[in-house]
């Protein structure tokens, strides 16, 4: 049996019953990475030795029938923006190329406590800024469904690793769609939780009022299990919500009968790929066939979301990235005359083009004379976008839209036109501005064989509703059984 083919929950159940050992599971995935990653390029680093040692410890306990933690021996991949003690955390940036964190992010501690085993750190757009993973300083991560296409971004490495069965599940981060958009491009289940649901302690900050960590998974049950393992209050992140964590896996299976699905006209616009639109409309019909009630809703400020986002996110980024000064950690320029010169050269040499562009845009929007016209204006429009969702959710339980207006695009197609790249996030950004949770689930393929993502957005802290709705759809359709031909 090819263990790497199994879902996380299937592997978990086999290990729990003692039918598969943690070492076998880890070896299977490491062999898969060995065979494929030279082509897919999903990993920035693979921690094979440490993974095997951890698996051996669980195996020793399994042999003597000792009780194991729920995810004992489950091999997972972590986006390279989440701090892992003793394992390089580069953010796919030259400026952090050799950074070895002295501590773990809270999500990492929680996954370790649940028994999961770290396989490696995954590729991404530098500092999570991008929608194609082309902004990595190190490598070109490919879409497993078509190696000439991007995997999406910024969590492109995590999405590609899951889609290519190079891990049982992965974590990514989502500031404007960076979990859901690559999830959609790679045909997997990908969840951005409500802002505050998961601790951000140890996540290298991009835009602190928008960033959220979440799972990229082979199916919805796996996504529910991973969310349950990482969610909850953390005293080290005062923005993490002090609310009970429901049993997300137990919440699956409720079906769609009587569930009101809101369809916003603003998400079905001219310029959308016709095959994407057809697949999404068919998915909505399938959900209706399962008993869901279709309700038209309005999100009238959708067209302002991208401008709002790229002002808010870059302003926060310009402040957050001020810490890379070449003093305490990270790259420092070889030659500098004095301190300010050292800062400027370090940052000029250490950051890539998109990161520089966003620092510049954010600094400009916050600078004297422009603050009110750009930054404050964007904060006010953010209020309007948030109110759209509050009002829409008075009429429906979940909102259903495409994840992206197009399937995965080819390398280089948008890289020279930053504005075109920003527009790729048009359907995912609003959920971050409003702080609400969203899922991408595969809803079919284009004639060229590329996956299409269906997005399901929920009320704040109602991850159960979107997991359940997406799971009901997933179980009623054949898409999850198809795998890329690698």
């Amino acid at each position, binding site marked *: 049996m090819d263990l790497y083919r199994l879902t996380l929950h299937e592997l978990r159940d086999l290990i729990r019953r003692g039918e598969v050992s943690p070492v076998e599971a880890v070896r299977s995935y490491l062999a898969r990475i060995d065979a494929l990653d030279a082509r897919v390029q999903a990993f920035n680093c693979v921690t094979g030795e440490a993974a095997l040692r951890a698996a051996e410890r669980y195996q020793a306990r399994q042999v003597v029938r000792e009780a194991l933690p729920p995810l004992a021996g489950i091999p997972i991949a972590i986006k390279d923006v989440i701090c892992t003690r003793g394992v390089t955390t580069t953010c796919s940036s030259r400026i952090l190329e050799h950074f070895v964190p002295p501590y773990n992010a809270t999500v990492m501690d929680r996954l370790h406590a649940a028994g999961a085993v770290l396989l490696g750190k995954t590729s991404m757009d530098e500092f999570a800024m991008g929608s194609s993973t082309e902004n990595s300083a190190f490598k070109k991560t490919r879409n497993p469904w078509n190696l000439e296409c991007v995997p999406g971004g910024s969590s492109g490495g995590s999405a590609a690793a899951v889609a290519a069965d190079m891990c049982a599940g992965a974590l990514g981060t989502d500031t404007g769609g960076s979990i859901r958009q690559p999830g959609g491009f790679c045909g997997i289940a990908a969840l951005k939780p409500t802002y505050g649901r998961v601790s951000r302690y140890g996540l290298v900050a991009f835009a602190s009022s928008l960033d959220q960590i979440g799972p990229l998974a082979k199916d919805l049950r796996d996504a529910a299990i991973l969310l349950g393992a990482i969610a909850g209050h953390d005293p080290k992140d005062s923005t993490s919500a002090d609310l009970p964590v429901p049993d997300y896996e137990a919440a699956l299976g409720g079906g769609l009968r009587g569930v009101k699905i809101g369809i916003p006209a603003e998400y079905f616009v001219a310029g959308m790929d016709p095959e994407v639109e057809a697949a999404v409309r068919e998915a909505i019909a399938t959900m209706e066939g399962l008993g869901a009630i279709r309700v038209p809703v309005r999100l009238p400020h959708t067209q302002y979301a991208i401008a709002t986002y790229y002002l808010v996110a870059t302003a926060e980024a310009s402040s957050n990235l001020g810490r890379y000064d070449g003093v305490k950690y990270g790259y420092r320029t070889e030659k500098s005359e004095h301190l300010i010169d050292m800062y400027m050269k370090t940052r000029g040499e250490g950051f890539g083009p998109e990161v520089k562009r966003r620092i510049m845009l954010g600094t400009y929007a916050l600078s004297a004379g422009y603050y009110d016209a750009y930054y404050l204006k964007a904060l006010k*429009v953010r209020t309007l976008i948030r109110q759209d969702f509050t009002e829409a959710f008075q009429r429906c339980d979940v909102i259903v839209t495409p994840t992206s207006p197009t399937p995965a695009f080819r390398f280089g197609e948008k890289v020279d036109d930053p504005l075109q790249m920003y527009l790729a996030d048009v359907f995912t950004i609003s959920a971050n501005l409003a702080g609400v949770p969203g899922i991408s689930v595969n809803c079919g393929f284009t004639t060229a064989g590329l996956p299409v993502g269906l997005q399901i957005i929920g009320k704040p802290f109602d991850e159960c509703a979107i997991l359940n709705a997406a799971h009901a759809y997933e179980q009623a359709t054949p898409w999850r059984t198809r795998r890329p031909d690698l």
Partner: protein
Amino acid sequence: MAKITRAEVEHVARLARLALSEDEKERMTAQLDAILGYMDTLNVLDTTKVEPTTTVIPMVTVLREDRVQPCLEREEALANAPDREDVFFRVPRIIEDWRETDRERDSDGDRDSPVGNS
């Protein structure tokens, strides 16, 4: 009309402590101009009566007892430093830097007279 000039790009780059090559300044001016032009779409909205949203969660001041807790060992905290001396992070001279900055600013001043506390 251009939203942003090359001189403004240079000014913002100094504020952001970002050294840009001549080529980068050129590209950045054109790209930021296009992006800022797009941002103008927000101006059709009347937001005079709208409160800004800085965060989607209720902000409360989080307090804890003032108790000593475990923290990073000094060696761990220094381990990633690009340059160090003994138990310190080492950086280029700062006093000299002040002198340089003042000289640049004061174009009429006597360039040979010391300005910093030397």
